[in-house]
C-alpha cells in the first residue's frame, strides 16, 4: 500500500495556544480512518493541516501527490455555508474541479456530464438546476459529496458528515463510503464513536496528542488510556444503528448517554 500523506511530529496551533502536539499520522491507500476526540481536542485542526489550510509550527507534512488535478476531496462542515447564495447544484459540484493554476478555466462538456453522472449516482440527478437554498440538509450533503468526488481524489476527508443529515441518509451514506473506500482512502471526523467504529478500519483519537488505534474495536478503557474522554454507546462489531431500531429502552439510554457525553465534552 502506498503512502498518501505523512505527518511527523507535527505541532500546530493558533494565536491563543497550541492545539496539537507532536502528532504523527500516516494515511495510506484504501485506509478508512475514524478521527474521534472531544470538542476542542484538535480534530478539525488535524484535517486543516492535511488540507494545507493550517501550517504546522514544527514537524513535517509530506504529501505524496503525483496525480493531476485534486488529490484530496473534502467535505467541510455545512455550518459555514450561506444557504441563500445564488448558485446552482451543478455549479457546486463543478467547483470541486477548481485548482491553483486554472482561474480562467471553463468546464468542458465532459466535466459537466461527469457532474450529472455523480448526481445521478446519489439519486439527485433531477436537482441539478436547483439552487442550494431549495434543498434539504441531506440533499445538500449529497451535493457536497459529489463536489468532493468529481476530481476522483485519492483521499476523501469528511468533517462531521452526519451533523445535518437525517438518520435514513446517515446509514446510506456510510454504505456509500464503504463503496468509495474500494477506490480511495477515507478520513472521517465524527463525535458518534459507536457508529463510525462499525464502518472504519482504524481509529485515531485526537486530544492535543494523537493516539492511533490500529483496529476498529475500541473500548472505553482503551480510550481512557489514550487520554480521550469519550463514552462509547455500542462496542465493536455490534451495529449501533440496528440496535437503535430494535431496542426501545436502549434507545432512551442512548439519548441519555449521548447528552451526558456532550456535557462531558
Amino acid at each position, binding site marked *: 500500500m502506498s503512502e498518501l500523506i505523512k505527518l511527523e511530529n507535527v505541532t500546530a496551533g493558533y494565536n491563543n495556544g497550541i492545539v496539537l502536539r507532536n502528532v504523527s499520522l500516516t494515511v495510506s491507500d484504501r485506509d478508512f480512518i475514524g478521527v474521534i476526540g472531544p470538542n476542542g481536542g484538535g480534530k478539525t485542526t488535524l484535517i486543516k493541516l492535511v*488540507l*494545507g*489550510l493550517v501550517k504546522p509550527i514544527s514537524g513535517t507534512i509530506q504529501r505524496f501527490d503525483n496525480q493531476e488535478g*485534486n488529490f*484530496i476531496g*473534502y467535505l*467541510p462542515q455545512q455550518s*459555514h*455555508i*450561506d444557504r441563500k*447564495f*445564488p*448558485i*446552482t447544484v451543478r*455549479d*457546486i459540484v*463543478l*467547483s*470541486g474541479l*477548481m*485548482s*491553483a493554476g486554472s*482561474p*480562467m*478555466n*471553463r*468546464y468542458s462538456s465532459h466535466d459537466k456530464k461527469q457532474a450529472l453522472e455523480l448526481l445521478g449516482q446519489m439519486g439527485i440527478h433531477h436537482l441539478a438546476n436547483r*439552487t*442550494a*437554498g*431549495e434543498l434539504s440538509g441531506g440533499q445538500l450533503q449529497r451535493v457536497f459529496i459529489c*463536489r468532493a468526488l468529481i476530481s476522483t481524489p485519492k483521499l476523501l476527508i469528511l468533517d462531521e458528515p452526519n451533523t445535518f443529515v437525517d438518520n435514513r441518509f446517515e446509514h446510506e451514506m456510510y454504505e456509500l463510503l464503504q463503496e468509495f473506500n474500494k477506490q480511495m482512502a477515507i478520513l472521517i471526523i465524527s463525535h458518534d464513536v459507536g457508529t463510525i467504529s462499525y464502518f472504519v478500519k482504524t481509529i485515531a483519537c485526537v486530544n492535543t496528542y494523537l493516539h492511533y488505534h490500529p483496529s476498529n474495536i475500541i473500548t472505553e478503557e482503551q480510550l481512557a488510556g489514550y487520554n480521550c474522554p469519550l463514552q462509547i454507546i455500542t462496542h465493536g462489531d455490534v451495529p449501533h444503528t440496528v440496535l437503535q431500531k430494535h431496542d426501545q429502552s436502549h434507545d432512551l439510554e442512548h439519548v441519555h448517554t449521548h447528552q451526558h457525553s456532550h456535557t462531558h465534552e
Partner: protein
Amino acid sequence: MTKAMIWNMFTPTNIHIPTNNMAGILSFDFVIHAIEAAFLASITCGFIGAYIVARRMVFISGGITHASFGGIGLGYFLGINPIFGAAIFSILSAFGIRLVSKQTDIREDSAIGILWSFGMAVGIIFIYLTPGYAPNLMSYLFGSILTVTLADLTMMGILAAVTIAVFLFFYRTILFISFDEEYARSHNAPVETFNYLMLTLVALVIVINIRVAGIILVISYLTIPQSTANLFVNDLKKIIFLSVIISFSGSCIGLLISYYWNIPSGATIIFVFVLIFILARAIVYLHNRKQRNGSVADI
C-alpha cells in the same frame, strides 16, 4: 450651472406633453449623455452589485462609499480632480476594513462604522478648509446624471469594459470563491488575490458611479435591481443579466418622470427602482398564492 437650472430651462410650461415630443427630449445632448451614463452605470453596478448582494457585502459597500467622501474633500483642498481622491480613499478604506477585521480583534462591522464616519468627517474638514465655495458638493452627495461630461463617460466606459472582461474570464473562480471560501482555499485557489481584485473593482465602481447617483444614493444601484432580479432568478449570472436590464429601464423611466415633473433625477430613479421592486414582489406573491390555491384545489 446646477441641475435644477438646466431642468428649469428645458421644462415645458405645460406638464401634459403629447408623447410625440419624445423625440424632442432626445435632441438635447445632456439627455443623450444621461442615458449613456445610465446604461454604463447599469452595467458596472449590475455586475458588481450582484457580487455584493450575493456575498452579503452591502454594509461594507456603504462604508466604502461614504469613506470616499474624505477623498473628495482632499481633492478639493489640493486642487486635483475629486474623483481621483475618492478612488484612493475608497480603495484604501476597502483594504483597510478587510485587513483590520482579519488581523486585529476589531470586528468587521465596527471597522466599517469607524471608517464610514471618519471618511465623511475628513471630507467635511477639508472642504471647510478649502478657500472659496465648493460649487459641486451637492452633486457628489446626490449625484447629477444630467451634467456628466464626455470625460466621465469615457471613464465609465473603460470601467464597464474591465468589469465585463473580469467576469467573462474569471466567472467560475469568482463564483466558487464567493460561495465557499474555505473550500476554495483547500484547493489552493488564489482566494486572497481574487478577494482583493474584486474589492478594488467594488471600490472603483462605487467611485465612478458617485458621479451619477451620488454618495447617498449609489448603494441603490448596487442593491435594488439585484434584489428585484433575485425574486425571479437564483443563479448569479442570471441575476447579473436581469439586474442590468432592470437597472437601465428603471433609470430611463426615472429620467423621463423627473424631466416631465421637474423633480431631482437621482431621487426619482431610486423611487422607480423601489416601485419596480414592490411590483415584482407583489407579482411573485400573487403567483405563489395562485399556485398554492391551485394545488389545494387539485386535492
